């Protein structure tokens, strides 16, 4: 009995965790918009945002307005959306595969997007920058979805061992796409190589209002859909057979989760390049805080993922101005030690 009481599982309830991370995210967004080569105080940022968006208050000078509205706000908001998309996708896929090492890469979408983007960078004739700026994301998006579709078609997951097959086929197809990416990289000239490396380390540098507008609705929709699957994802963590015994249509749920996570990841990564670690680390942190139930896991992961990217992007802009360090370096740099600390602290890690 004593053991039962002392080992009682401690958890932060959703009602406490979500508001706290949401407030921190809001603060981080304001600070992020104010940070960069031109420093703005939070007050200035809020004044501009209030004037431009809500039509309240006097606003600020034209320079400040341009910096906030045109340069930084779409980028920071896009970063937040990307973080939410990657973290929630990672959480859902870890549960689907019952594997804590799963992240959006497991269904091939990252490898496919890389191949698409790098292929476009290398194969396109030297055309105007404006066109390239759209062809590369489009190619990345298509590549990501193609890879996932190919994996799904080859694995033809059905009841029983479907998810295990999916995992193995995913590894094989992912390796093939990585080889293709390697081939394109090998064939690239110096200028192309620079773009390739930059894409692969991720950046929010190319975000505009238009790009934000393109992804916002689909991403919010995808996040909402995944959150509506919370109960089903809980059952999936028990394993396919048990989930089925409890009345879950495993095949359709699995298909739904894969399609939504591929779209979420593909849509955001297409514009930002590969941003690693968020999808892997954030769900773990949230599980340790709030437990594995998806009703809390998904929304808190969304907000924490958003927060992590907003902070990482801010760092990438301020450490070596005017240069921008790739954001992927910071997500890994911040995520790895934190993750490591959590792993070292927890008693047992089960794979």
């Amino acid at each position: 009995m004593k053991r039962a009481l002392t080992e009682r599982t401690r958890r932060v309830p959703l009602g406490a965790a979500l508001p706290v991370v949401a407030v921190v995210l809001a603060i981080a967004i304001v600070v992020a918009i104010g940070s960069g080569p031109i420093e703005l105080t939070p007050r200035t940022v809020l004044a501009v945002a209030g004037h431009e968006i809500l039509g309240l208050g006097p606003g600020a000078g034209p320079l400040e307005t341009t910096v906030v509205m045109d340069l930084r706000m779409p980028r920071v908001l896009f970063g937040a959306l990307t973080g939410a998309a990657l973290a929630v996708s990672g959480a859902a896929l870890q549960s689907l595969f019952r594997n804590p090492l799963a992240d959006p890469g497991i269904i091939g979408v990252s490898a496919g997007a890389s191949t698409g983007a790098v292929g476009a960078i290398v194969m396109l004739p030297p055309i105007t920058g404006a066109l390239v700026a759209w062809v590369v994301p489009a190619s990345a998006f298509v590549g990501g979805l193609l890879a996932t579709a190919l994996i799904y078609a080859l694995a033809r997951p059905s009841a029983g061992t479907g998810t295990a097959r999916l995992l193995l086929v995913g590894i094989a197809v992912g390796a093939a796409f990585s080889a293709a990416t390697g081939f394109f990289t090998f064939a690239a000239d110096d200028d192309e190589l620079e773009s390739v490396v930059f894409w692969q380390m991720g950046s929010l540098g190319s975000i505009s209002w238009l790009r934000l507008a393109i992804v916002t609705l689909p991403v919010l929709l995808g996040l909402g859909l995944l959150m509506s699957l919370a109960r089903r994802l809980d059952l999936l963590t028990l394993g396919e057979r048990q989930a089925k015994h409890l009345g879950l249509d495993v095949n359709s749920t699995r298909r739904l989760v894969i399609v939504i996570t591929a779209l979420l990841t593909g849509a955001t990564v297409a514009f930002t390049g590969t941003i690693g670690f968020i999808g892997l680390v954030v769900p773990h942190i949230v599980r340790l805080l709030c437990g594995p139930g998806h009703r809390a896991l998904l929304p808190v992961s969304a907000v924490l993922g958003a927060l992590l990217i907003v902070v990482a992007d801010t760092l990438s802009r301020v450490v070596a101005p005017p240069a921008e360090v790739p954001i992927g370096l910071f997500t890994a740099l911040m995520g790895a030690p934190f993750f490591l600390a959590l792993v070292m602290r927890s008693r047992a890690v089960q794979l």
Partner: protein
Amino acid sequence: MSARQHGPVPQDGPPSGPRPSPTPCLEVHGAGFTIDGARLLEDVSFTASPGELVAMVGPNGAGKSTMLALLAGDLVPTTGEVTLAGIAPHRWTAKALARERSVMTQQHGQAFSFTVRELVEMGRAPHDASDEDDEIVAAALVDAEIADLAERDVTTLSGGELARTVFARTLTQSAAIVLLDEPTAPLDLRHQELLMQRARELADEGRCVLVVLHDLSLAARFCDRVAMFSAGRLAALGAPESVLTPERIEDVYRQKVAVLAHPVTGRPLVVPV
């Protein structure tokens, strides 16, 4: 005996427990299952009715778990047919099937740190949320003697504690047909008894309970009928006293046994000699 039989299955005297109601809710007709050329199950026929507790026994690899998987809808028979309430399991929608039958499998490894209570609550998943849910979950926690563990992380449980948790989840599913695959294997003496008593009660409440067991004495003590499997076939089906004879057990298990009478209940007690 309500069972409609196909094939040479010995039919022995009436069950000594409560009389099963005459309409079977679970029917198996000439069912067989072959995978990669290996014949795991061949020409099995039996029926079971509400109110019955039926044990499925047999040596390792005799086909008990395969039979259970066919009944659960995990596998589709390659020959013959299996029906629950007249319909083949794979023709049900997953949710409707989960309201009709609950399953406790042998493996229940947990990948994530749900609490015992959360895991047990998942048994309510096939049902629409109702005010009774909390009551049903609380009762199941008590029945499985895991109320004290309710807030524990399931990944920290012992094998027996985890098995009791999964049994509690099976109870909360409130299904008419309950399939238990070696539920007592990881349990201590007391909890084996408790689990089988609860299974007995489920049958007495009018459910149809099928349980795979290795302990023949346990099967004899609690079950109305015993189905003995041997090399993928149903070797015998009937009341424990008639199925569990020394000759048959030696024949099927290749192990000499003596069958005694339980000093208190008088039920068969199977001991190796």
